[in-house]
């Protein structure tokens, strides 16, 4: 027990005396949350639009005001000719142009039909679709307002409810993603680097030629990172609830428990990496290539897995962070209970046991 404590104390000293490690440990979660929360967002806000109004009547003015008042658009320019629209798109000043034909109000109310042209810059297709949709919905609400006075014989009125995330906030998606990414990086990368560092500095050689069971060296390496990862989970959760207004719908206890499970899976992965690499650089590269990229690509946090070709979907099943991402999304955002994440939890347990077994099998009591 004294030996165990001596190792843990030593490990904490290593971590606390290395500024670089400390910055990664505590700076990264905060920076990531703030980055994803405020800078890297796929919500389209305050898009600049241009107006070409040939009609200049009550109806067109009303619509323009509605557009400008919404948080999605800023009316940047009023044009007087189609050439100016063209010019503004080329200069990238606007994302969308709205063109009202002459006698807009007249044709709307007298002929019961009127058209508006929406011109979007589709060099970024996703944004173009999004802004066109926003604009259409504003037009539609105006139309409903006008139509309220008269009734058409047949209409289908879709009523849309966005479940779990009614405001369509990006944060609901990336908070689970960031949690998966950071826990994996800290638990797996930092532990594997810490173990490999001992190999590289030659201290592992000295420890091997000692009565200490090698497994103790490894286990005590991982324990401080369990604690630190747990602090990180808490930090991320506090930040997301207070700063990004992402509520924890499900049980906090379940969420923390599942996070612990994922931390163990990541640690097991880190141990495994440390048994197959001999230098810190290789360990770091291996962690980044094997952990970070697949987490970004295959967890479903940035790109929907359903859209991937079958082989890629299959690969995504092998990525532990995918399952954790699902768990966090289900528990934190949807507020589901343990039953609904049972399958994912069992997969993580199996992966953890698998990695530990491979790591133990690979673990060398000698140098080669």
């Amino acid at each position: 027990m004294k030996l165990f404590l001596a190792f843990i104390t030593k490990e904490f000293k290593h971590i606390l005396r290395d500024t670089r490690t400390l910055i990664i440990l505590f700076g990264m979660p905060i920076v990531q949350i703030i980055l994803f929360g405020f800078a890297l967002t796929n919500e389209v806000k305050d898009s600049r639009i241009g107006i070409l109004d040939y009609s200049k009547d009550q109806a067109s003015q009303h619509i323009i005001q509605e557009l400008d008042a919404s948080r999605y658009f800023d009316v940047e320019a009023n044009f007087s000719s189609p050439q100016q629209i063209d010019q503004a798109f080329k200069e990238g000043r606007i994302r969308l142009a709205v063109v009202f034909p002459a006698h807009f109000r007249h044709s709307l109310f007298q002929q019961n039909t009127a058209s508006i042209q929406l011109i979007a810059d589709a060099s970024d297709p996703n944004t173009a679709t999004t802004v066109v949709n926003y604009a259409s919905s504003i037009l539609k609400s105006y139309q409903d307002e006008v139509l309220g006075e008269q009734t058409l014989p047949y209409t289908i009125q879709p009523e849309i409810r966005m479940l779990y995330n009614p405001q369509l906030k990006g944060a609901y998606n990336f908070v689970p993603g960031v949690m998966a990414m950071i826990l994996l990086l800290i638990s797996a990368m930092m532990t594997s680097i810490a173990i490999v560092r001992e190999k590289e500095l030659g201290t592992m050689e000295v420890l091997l030629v000692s009565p200490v069971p090698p497994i103790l060296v490894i286990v005590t390496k991982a324990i401080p990172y369990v604690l630190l990862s747990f602090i990180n989970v808490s930090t991320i959760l506090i930040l997301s609830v207070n700063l990004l207004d992402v509520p924890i719908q499900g049980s906090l206890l379940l969420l923390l428990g599942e996070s612990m499970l994922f931390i163990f899976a990541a640690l097991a992965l880190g141990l495994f990496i440390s048994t197959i690499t001999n230098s810190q650089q290789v360990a770091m590269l291996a962690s980044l290539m094997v952990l970070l990229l697949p987490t970004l690509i295959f967890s479903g946090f940035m790109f929907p897995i359903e859209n991937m070709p079958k082989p890629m979907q299959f690969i995504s099943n092998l990525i532990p962070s995918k399952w954790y991402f699902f768990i966090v999304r289900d528990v934190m955002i949807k507020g589901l209970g343990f039953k609904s994440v049972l399958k994912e939890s069992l997969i993580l347990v199996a992966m953890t046991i698998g990695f530990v077994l491979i790591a133990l099998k690979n673990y060398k009591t000698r140098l080669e």
Partner: protein
Amino acid sequence: MNAIIANHLFKSFEKGKIKALEDISFEVKQSELFGLIGPDGAGKTTLFRILATLLLAESGDASVDGLDVKKDYKAIRKRVGYMPGKFSLYQDLSVEENLNFFAHVFGTTIEQNYHLIKDIYQQLEPFKTRKAGKLSGGMKQKLALCCALIHEPSVLFLDEPTTGVDPVSRKEFWEMLKYLKSEGITILVSTPYMDEASLCDRVALMQKGKILDIDTPVGIIEKYPKKIWSIHAPNMYALLQVARAFPNTHTCFGFGESHHLTLKNDDEDYQAFCQYVQTHYKEPFQIQEITATIEDCFMALS
């Protein structure tokens, strides 16, 4: 009983391309200070690692304290002290923290075996709160020795402990080894410095994975077959050229301040050599007979 026995050890790396050890056999007696002398790449570190149970030999066997390095590696690890060639302590821990940690590793305390490390530790004590990474080369090695000694090992493996250490610290280090030997500890030490060979009880001269000779330092020198002269002159390089041009020169090597010369027929060639140098080198030079050093023996054997 011999403390260390190596029996026809073979070891190669990179699928047999590099032969690190070829048929290494030797024995080290209880509380003997045994030196492995040889240049870099001689296989000293590989040999250490096999004896310290870190590597397995391809063939041959070895035992430490009567225990087989392959079967009983766990028992061996409890009773040997090992100091690798590279400084292998925690650079970000202080002197005291390193010592305490290794004391824990071996299930002991600094106080328990203080008598062994007292002399070195007293030199380290003023720096005990300093980080190990900030110590001088000599201090680092002394600390590493302390850490290797903390559990009173019966056999000590020291892989090039004095490489990169200043001459004063080297001298102190060897005095420490003599003291440990008197305490009954068997020491296997390697060094690339030939002058340190004479400080060992017995030495093995190693090169390219083979042992060239094993004997006491005196014994090795006595075996040296030829007469040897030291020659000296203001222009050492020209002198070397002339000496080597003499047809009956056997060998002539630069040894720091002088050249060491051997002649094919020893004394018979001496007069002819002096005349030859006088005619060709033209300026005055000094020549005197000397006793061979370990380095001369090494050159002669390799």
